[in-house]
């Protein structure tokens, strides 16, 4: 007559970040958060597409953009996506030192990206192309700026992760945090590829 009841904890053999049920659920949660972020960028991209030719009195994309810095930013960010991959690889190998080193490299590449982008923005504004000038510029700054803000936030996040790993080593919790950070970072990289294609390339060519 007795009811079957579940065991409290089940042992599993999974990567460290998935080994604890709670941490694994948090990874699912992070994917869901990424969905909302995809939708945010989706809305920004579609707005950009609509505002694409609302130049008013302001400059056109062709007049505004210069390729040099954009290529540099692309290289920096794409490389950082590779190095965060190496960092996670090191994490799976339980190599804390290598992990931290690659994380620092990632972080520096990200910082280089942000610096170059801020430099671009300052240049645009100095040449009079503020977002007040036109719907196009508003949409451009909002889209690209939101991505830049994400990268900046990511850098600060990575700093807190470095401290946590240094203090606590590799546990299911720190591993999960690092893993979600890597998801976030790859995601920003993908968004940048779209920005590069639809904003910069498209703006220069069309």
């Amino acid at each position: 007559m007795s009811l079957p009841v579940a065991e409290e904890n089940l042992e599993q053999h999974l990567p460290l970040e998935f080994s604890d049920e709670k941490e694994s659920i948090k990874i699912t949660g992070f994917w869901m958060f990424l969905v909302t972020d995809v939708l945010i960028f989706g809305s920004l991209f579609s707005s950009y597409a609509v505002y694409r030719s609302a130049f008013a009195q302001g400059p056109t994309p062709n007049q505004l953009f210069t390729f040099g810095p954009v290529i540099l930013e692309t290289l920096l960010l794409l490389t950082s996506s590779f190095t965060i991959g190496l960092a996670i690889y090191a994490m799976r190998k339980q190599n804390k030192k290598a992990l931290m080193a690659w994380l620092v490299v990632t972080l520096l590449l990200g910082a280089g990206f942000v610096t170059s982008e801020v430099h671009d923005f300052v240049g645009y504004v100095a040449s009079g192309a503020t977002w007040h000038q036109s719907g196009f510029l508003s949409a451009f700054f909002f889209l690209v700026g939101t991505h830049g803000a994400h990268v900046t936030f990511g850098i600060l996040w990575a700093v807190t992760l470095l401290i946590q790993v240094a203090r606590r080593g590799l546990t299911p919790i720190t591993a999960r945090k690092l893993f979600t950070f890597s998801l976030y970072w790859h995601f920003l990289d993908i968004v940048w590829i779209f920005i590069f294609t639809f904003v910069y390339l498209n703006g220069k060519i069309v």
Partner: protein
Amino acid sequence: MPSFVQYLIRTLFPHDVLRPTELGADVMILATGVIIVYYLTKQKKWLYLWNEWLTTVDHKKIAVMYLIAAVAMLFRGGVDALMLRTNLALPTTPVISDLEYNQVFTTHGTIMIFFMAMPFIFALFNAVVPLMIGARDVAFPRLNAMSFWLFAFGALLLNISFVIGGSPDAGWTAYPPYTGLLFNPGPGENYYFLSLLIAGIGTTMTGVNFLVTTLRMRAPGMTLMKMPMFIWATMATSALILFAFPPLTVALAMSLFDRLFGSSFFTLAHGGLPMMYVNLFWLFGHPEVYIVVLPPFGIFSEVVATFSRKALFGYSVMVVSIISIMFLAYGTWVHHFFTMGAGPAVNAFFGLSTMLIAIPTGVKIFNWIFTMWGGRIRLTTAMLYQLAFIPTFVIGGATGILLATVPADYQLHNTYFLIAHFHNVLIGGTLFGLLSGMYYWWPKMFGHKLNERQGQWAFWLYFIGFWVTFGPQYLLGLKGMTRRIYTYPLGFGWHELNVISTVGAFIMGAGFVVMVYNVVWSLKYGEKDLTGDPWDGRTLEWALPSPVPEYNFARIPVVTARDAWWDMKQKGQTLANSLRPEDMRTIELPKNTPVPFLLGLAFFVVGFGMTFQWWVIVAFGAAGVVASLVYSAFDYDEHKHVGAEVIRRTEAALGRLQG
């Protein structure tokens, strides 16, 4: 007086917050505040408030806080509604001016949708979802508390606009150029955008939380097709939130940037495109109406099965229709602005896609009716709402189809016909559903029933009041009365119908009073629920004692059938009669934390500072936000353990242990 103080007074208390209505409200707010502070101090309850409520991460307590907030907001939104209706009954002697009327209909709509319906839904999600799926809490208890406090402080921010600085006045949809700086200086619209942004972050996180909870936290054996229908509704609603709130966030942010930082998204000069706002808003807005109606669909599916003593008819068809409603909801947003003139092809497409939604909705209606068919029906308050809902919602849906007929919509758009339509679905569907859920789950949340006789009085007042209010509005719409007007000339034949409608509104107001009386009376004298299963329920929450102990389930049951608890009762295998003292284990529970509350507070400071563009205050708030986030990143002490012995004692005291 130093000029600084004068500046402060002029900014915080301009003319439009010094009208008699606002001053009256000031007095009431102050008086209530003093009473609360006095009571808390006298009873030495401050610490209790902090430890048990403000820092809690227990989903059951968060549910109670959501519920209190929702009922308070129902009151505020209701008072707004009565002010609007009073004006329309007296066209020759308006009680409030045109400007104040604009503010009141704006706060009415905003509050009812974002700060009444949404928290009411989250109250019921929090109260029952973990219990129904056999879980100890939601997937992310701390995030859950953060969501609540972001909502609560967002609501506070919108509500203080009324007495500090001036309310928003561009409608709940906040279209540009009404919200543009050029036509609408002053803090009102800043309040609107900031409060919705803050609450919106909370709502998005709630969506994430409940999606993951229903996906990953179900008891062993509860496969997707064994989930209660309310859980399906929760899942679909959460998914809708995930996809709908981001466009809203973007639209609100753009409007705010236009106002505060001089961008040109929706301005009339510099290539701004106001229709872009309208698109983004309704890309959110139409899914939003399903976000507020799917949970009631879920509630009704539980209520009708319980009170008909039958399993839900056509379960798998119900699942399919919920999912198709979820997808279709994204493909209809243009029906809110057919008159934009996007051309016959676009309008025809969106007209058709809108009508398609009626099909899965109709299927659900039939399934509820077939569930009742041949069942042994008990006419409780919860069930009465169900019975009222069916015809009311059918009529609301039918008038929606009329509006989706493009040529007809060119006539009816933004008339009282539209107003009647959406109140028909929002009150007849959403509100009736939520009230049904409240009466149904009240014993589980509070350990006693709500008095049935009083509850039925409230029900009849609401139901009759609803039809007296909104029936005439269909006719008014057909006679050409447009929405958002504070008075009208007498010769159009509108006056009598408006008077009837206002009478109806006051009947609904009486319903609210009776309902509150019902709640207060029952807190004291309500029949205690000693069994934990007062309605002879079918789903797992009724397996637990009422109110539920902190850890929910002493042991997590294994589910083998769809109506899990009903099945266990049939087999005589309930938790209560099968757990022995030696079965108890140590349990891990989330630990209280002040961070969510402080995070909400910090966001509030940011919002308030931005509203008045006081950047020093913004900087303080932002520092608070960062500090809260960093603190919680380094806080690894998230859990506490409840020993087996404690659980043994608690369960024994509840009479739920064998031997």
